[in-house]
């Protein structure tokens, strides 16, 4: 509890009052000690902390929670959250961020390395992605060495030699065939030795689990390059034509259905999984709680009062590094209105990934309620 400013230890009114009630603090005013009644009457007011807010505060403190005032400026904005930027104001937050972000990048570089490796080591047939353009020149170069005159380029990748840049045997790439170059460019050989020093040639060790997942992924993925017709395509235009041809084929029996403006949502001769089909014929899209929040104007009617942290023993709470709160608390009473959807959306958005709990004070009783986003479960058996 407490904070220091201008070199002094200070207490917030609710903290001082709570300590007084626990018998741990004596407050003096004009050299006379405050009674607890004085504390209630002087410290609690609508402009600082209301009685109801104090009731919730004291209730949580008595249960052992660490309760701080909520400062909206300390909550990372959605933009900051999205970019995972470090918090500039809160050193503790930055530390936490750094710690948290330490592991994912290493993993992702691992992934990338793995990917690179696959490209390097892959046999020449499997290219077909965007990377292909990069390799094309090499393919060309190597291929044309052997068959210099093939007017319509129909590449047989299986026969094309692919330079293994990772191996030590080829420290030098020979210069390409000048007939392949778009103009009279003098292109010499390329020494790849300095470049090879820069790349990481260590073998990626995959854990058994990763390997399994990898294999799984490959099993379920139908390789489009294995398709006979696709293999016969010589360029993208032909491939696109093929796709169009395939898409048009089923218009034989129920052609009349597709002739009009209104067409069926789905052609029954295209078998797709049930889940996909249901998704396709869905009329209303389900929305989630945070949808469209950014366009809602904020209001002062509902505001978060407290950050609640779990007690020291459970979470190892440190004041210098409070971390993410356990919950955030709003205070209201049964006399007031129930928060509407707009208020709930705003509160949830403001709080980010920390749940917002609404403490309802009814005289001495305090009950806690949460509004949660609920997605209807979908059970589809294919």
């Amino acid at each position, binding site marked *: 509890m407490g904070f220091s400013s201008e070199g002094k230890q200070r207490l917030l009114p609710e903290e001082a009052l709570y300590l007084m009630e626990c018998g741990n603090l004596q407050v003096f005013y004009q050299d006379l000690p405050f009674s607890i009644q004085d504390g209630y009457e002087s410290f609690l007011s609508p402009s600082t902390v209301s009685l*109801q807010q104090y009731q919730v505060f004291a209730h949580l403190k008595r249960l052992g929670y660490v309760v701080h005032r909520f400062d909206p400026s300390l909550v990372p904005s959605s933009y900051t959250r999205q970019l995972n930027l470090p918090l500039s104001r809160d050193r503790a937050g930055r530390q936490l961020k750094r710690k948290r972000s330490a592991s994912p990048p290493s993993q992702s570089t691992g992934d990338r390395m793995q990917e690179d490796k696959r490209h390097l080591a892959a046999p020449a047939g499997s290219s077909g992605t965007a990377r292909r353009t990069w390799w094309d020149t090499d393919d060309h170069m190597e291929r044309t060495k052997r068959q210099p005159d093939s007017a319509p380029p129909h590449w047989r990748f299986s026969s094309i030699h692919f330079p293994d840049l990772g191996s030590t045997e080829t420290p030098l790439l020979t210069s390409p065939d000048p007939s392949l170059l778009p103009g009279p460019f003098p292109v010499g050989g390329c020494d790849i030795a300095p470049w090879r020093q820069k790349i990481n040639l260590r073998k990626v060790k995959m854990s058994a689990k990763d390997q399994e997942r990898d294999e799984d992924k490959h099993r379920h993925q139908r390789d489009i390059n294995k398709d006979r017709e696709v293999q016969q395509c010589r360029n993208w235009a032909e491939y696109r034509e093929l796709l169009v041809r395939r898409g048009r084929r089923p218009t034989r029996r129920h052609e009349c259905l597709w002739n009009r403006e209104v067409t069926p949502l789905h052609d029954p001769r295209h078998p797709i999984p049930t889940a996909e089909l249901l998704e396709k014929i869905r009329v209303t899209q389900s929305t989630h709680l945070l949808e469209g929040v950014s366009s809602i104007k904020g209001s002062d009617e509902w505001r978060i009062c407290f950050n609640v942290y779990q007690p020291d023993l459970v979470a190892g709470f440190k004041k210098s590094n409070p971390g993410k709160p356990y919950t955030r608390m709003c205070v209201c009473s049964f006399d007031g209105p129930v928060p509407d959807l707009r208020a709930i959306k705003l509160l949830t958005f403001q709080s980010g990934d920390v749940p917002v709990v609404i403490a309802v004070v009814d005289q001495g009783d305090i009950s806690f309620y949460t509004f949660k986003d609920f997605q209807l479960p979908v059970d589809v058996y294919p």
Partner: protein
Amino acid sequence: MGEPEGAPPRPPAVGVSLCDSAPLLWRLEDLRSVRARALVGTLLGSLPRTPRQNLRLGRPLLLLPEEERVLSEEHAAGALPARDQQGGDVELKVRQHQEEQQRSYEEQRVLALEDKKSALLRVRTASPTGESRIRTRDERLHAAQQNFGFPPSAMAVQLSTARAGLAHCSESRALLQADWPIRDQNPRSANRYQVFRDLRRRGFYLTSAGKFGGDFLVYPGDPLRFHAHFIAVCVSADESVCVLDILAVARLGSNVKKTVLLCSAGPDADVLYTSVQWSGMS
């Protein structure tokens, strides 16, 4: 203390003070006399001896708006003097306070010395005794008395719950003007108040029933000794009610083994009570 025997026709006024527009009672006698009037209220504060729990709480006592209005209509409540209008010389009070602290310090010092002596004696008697030992013991006791230091910071102080001054002398309670105003006056609370007064007139104790989704919990006697029998829900006599609401409260009432009373205030201070029962026919 309790209620004085052969009390004057009107018992002394209950001192109420407002905190953030909530009526709070602070003095022990007031709490007693309010309870004697069959008003329950809610305790809010931490218990000084066991502050870190929520099951048993202590002063202040928060009154329901209806309870506050009962007190003011019976001319039984007055405002506690505020801190700054309590009057008196501040310097004099500071001097009194310091003298009191000094007196308390002396007393505590004597007690602490006694404590230490008895601790020393206990250590002695636990070990085997001898002639020479007794002499050293006396010397030690003497030395302890000579060197005994009791730092002022080790002194225990008392934090008073209610504001000091009025609470000490009981005759000053009569000085309170029983002129607490009726503050809350909107039609909904008028309806509630009529129900509250009627049920109270019939000898029931009432508390707030927010946790049961009603207006009042109705106890046949003191809530410390009885379970509530009814959940009172105040509805207006001439407005239609949604049947789902009725079903919801009736269902809830049967689940917690209480009868739901639909209470509507009638035209001349009487109240109509209706209970809903779910009758299973098989």
